[in-house]
């Protein structure tokens, strides 16, 4: 069951991700990305990360992607034009990517030779309570500091996107 679920959603994720890369229209890409996020959320659940799975849907798919779609709409961004130049880059980058992927996979295989099987329910330490507990004790400082990060993001967005001041 776990395996079926994994392969199913992994397949969806990969296909959606490929779709993100190959679609010519930003909106299509954005929607594909939502697909990736959704399937990842399921995988998170499989891994026992309840809170993260929820956050993934709410924050990522819900908020961030909406923002993207909003901007795409705002700018009325159309389909990409066919490549003007850059075939050299493609020629160089494709093998690089293949190499990268192969190497990473190889390293993972070599690095975790006796990896345990992922069985749903074996790890339940990812509930909102557990996450919250860690967040307000051990990770108190990073949590507080992220507020600064968000503040900056707000200021930045305002500075860059507001109307001309007179």
């Amino acid at each position, binding site marked *: 069951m776990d395996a079926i679920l994994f392969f199913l959603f992994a397949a969806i994720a*990969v296909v959606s991700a490929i779709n993100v890369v190959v679609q010519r229209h930003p909106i299509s890409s954005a929607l594909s990305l939502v697909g*990736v996020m959704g399937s990842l959320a399921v995988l998170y659940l499989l891994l026992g990360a309840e809170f993260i799975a929820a*956050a993934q849907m709410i*924050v990522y798919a819900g908020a961030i992607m909406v923002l993207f779609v909003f901007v795409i709409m705002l700018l009325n961004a159309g389909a*990409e034009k066919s490549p003007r130049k850059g075939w050299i880059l493609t020629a160089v980058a494709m093998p690089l990517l293949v190499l990268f992927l192969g190497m990473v*996979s190889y390293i993972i295989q070599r690095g975790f030779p006796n990896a345990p099987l*992922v069985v749903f329910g074996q790890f339940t330490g*990812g509930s909102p309570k557990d996450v919250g507990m860690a967040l307000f004790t051990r990770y108190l400082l990073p949590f507080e500091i992220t507020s600064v*990060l968000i503040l900056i993001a707000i200021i930045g967005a305002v500075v860059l996107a507001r109307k001309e001041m007179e």
Partner: protein
Amino acid sequence: MPPIPLPTAVPLTYYLILSAILFALGVAGFLFRKSLITVFMSIELMLNAVNLTFVTFSYQHKQVDGHLFTFFVMVVAAAEAAVGLAIILTVFKNRGTLAVDEIDSLKL
């Protein structure tokens, strides 16, 4: 013909390889897409791949720390999205284009 025994569960490395594939696809998107917005989306894809890694390892170590990391990555992603899109907006306002290749006046 004996039935093929379906595996009941997959090893952890499968998740990791999935994340690697997603990461590589994100990199590919960054390299091959022409629109600023999709390039940015590719970065989000990469971050998602990383998140999967964290959650997977969290499972392995039976710890919550990986989830925390993922959580902060999400927050950062959100902040980046706000700023990034604002920057893309200004670029579009000044140049009227979202094509990555046309943003190369500063060079050499």
